[in-house]
């Protein structure tokens, strides 16, 4: 069970990193996530069913996510729509797109197809105990993504993205177009979310249009748990670690809720309520602690 919690936390952790980028670094509350997560899943499953290599399929899923984010950013930038609404627009449109990608079906399984996960399991079976193969694999994947992000946010471009979330006027004064930065940032964020969706689909064995429902809330809750647990810092390495740690904690709570919730007559449909209540509790706790954790949506 413990490895299941970690695997889930790490898979969704990639999504949490994406949410962290848009909400925390860019100060761009982006709801596209609810659509780009199943988009990644749908692209992955369809590509696999077409017999494509899993890693190529992953790249396509990433590109799809980036495109979704870019569309949100373009709507926001050029039509002067508030960022929340721009995200909701893309998310709504993606629902139809995802069903199209899945061939007019709401749910498509990949149970008999070789996926990245089955290949990895085959390769390392016998080397590591079977139940830990995926855990090690996702630990590596999440760490690679984390380290790449840490490197990215230390480049001039990455730092400027951080500055924009903090002070847009400063970025304009440096002769940088904030619209370009938003497009890059939101694109990257949704690319990560789609990658997370692609892994989730392989892990679950299917892609479903409903996969992304409420995922933004899970992502935010994870980010906030991470910020709550680990000390405050502005070092990007610590921040991305917080996001991953928060994700593992959050999905551990959800896991427990799913498997032992029946003891208190809880059904899986109650989980969304639990998520929301969890966020509210976190907000109250952070305010009580007088720690400054701005909840940017409420702005």
């Amino acid at each position, binding site marked *: 069970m413990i490895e299941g919690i970690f695997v889930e936390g790490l898979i969704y952790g990639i999504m949490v990193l994406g949410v962290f980028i848009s909400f925390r670094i860019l100060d761009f509350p982006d709801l596209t996530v609810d659509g780009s997560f199943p988009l990644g899943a749908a692209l992955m499953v369809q590509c696999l069913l077409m017999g494509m290599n899993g890693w190529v399929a992953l790249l396509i899923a990433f590109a799809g996510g980036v495109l979704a984010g870019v569309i949100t950013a373009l709507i926001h930038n050029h039509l002067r729509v508030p960022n929340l609404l721009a995200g909701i627009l893309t998310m709504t449109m993606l629902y139809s797109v995802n069903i199209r990608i899945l061939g007019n079906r709401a749910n498509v399984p990949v149970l008999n197809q070789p996926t990245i996960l089955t290949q990895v399991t085959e390769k390392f079976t016998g080397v590591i105990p079977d139940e830990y193969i995926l855990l090690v694999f996702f630990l590596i994947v999440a760490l690679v993504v984390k380290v790449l992000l840490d490197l990215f946010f230390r480049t001039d471009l990455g730092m400027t993205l951080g500055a924009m979330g903090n002070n847009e006027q400063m970025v304009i004064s440096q002769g940088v177009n904030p619209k370009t930065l938003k497009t890059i940032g939101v694109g990257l964020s949704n690319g990560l979310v789609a990658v997370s969706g692609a892994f989730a689909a392989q892990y679950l064995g299917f892609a479903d249009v409903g996969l992304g429902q409420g995922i933004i809330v899970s992502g935010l809750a994870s980010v906030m748990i991470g910020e709550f647990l680990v000390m405050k810092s*502005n070092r990007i390495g610590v921040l991305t670690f917080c996001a991953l740690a928060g994700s593992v904690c959050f999905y551990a709570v959800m896991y427990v809720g799913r498997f032992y919730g029946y003891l208190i007559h809880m059904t899986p449909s109650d989980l969304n309520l639990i998520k929301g209540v969890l966020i509210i509790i976190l907000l109250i706790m952070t305010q009580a602690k007088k720690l400054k954790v701005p909840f940017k949506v409420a702005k």
Partner: protein
Amino acid sequence: MIELKNVSIVFGQGTVNENKALNNINLKVKEGDFITIIGSNGAGKSTLFNTIAGTYTPTEGQILANGKNVTRDPEYKRAKYIGRIFQNPLLGTAGNMSLEDNMTITHKKGMKWLRRSLNNKSREFFKQELVQLRMGLEHRMKENLVMFSGGQRQALTLLMMVLSKPSLILLDEHTAALDPKNAEIVLELTNKFISDYNLTAMMITHNMSHAIEFGNRLLMMDGGEIIFDIEGEEKKALTVEKLIQKFHELRHKTFENDRTLLAED
């Protein structure tokens, strides 16, 4: 340098709230000019800066930069050669980032890509430049800017702007939000940088004696117009009394002196 030709700005055109914020402004800023601008609240000083910087697009008229028409260029494009400091000392820097990160971002203008230009060499360069501020900031490179005072952040913004070598700098009451001691320090630094680096500058101030003391040229604005433009020896001979009298002569009304006289030394 920068030239404004018949520039007008009208807010809320065609509505009952129509307001002519700038009225047919003609201004030629020559290279090496240090222009101080005074005028009562609502005279159009900040609107003039916003128009030069590109925040507002003129309703009529043209803006030329080095002979090129830039009237419709967005603010971020003009920012490559126009440096600007605001009254709010927090607007020039990112508070939740370290001093060295801030300096890396502001060091060179224009779009940033995947290079990492912060290294020991650039750190050394930043430290050397920071010494000029005489605030000891060179020992606090890794600290977040929220830990710094408004005066320190404004001085830093000034230094970073100067290092990017802009053709024109716009100072919009950049010492007004600071305490008197810090305001004095930042103003002295401003004057020093402008003469050391031979910069072209425009400075809005509410302090008449500052307007007279600094710079080689003085503009007085009222009702969206430049009513008085004086430079050289003539400007040197100005006094606060003469300036107020001049305003009275030109406008046949008393200078709205709520802040102006209070700020008089």
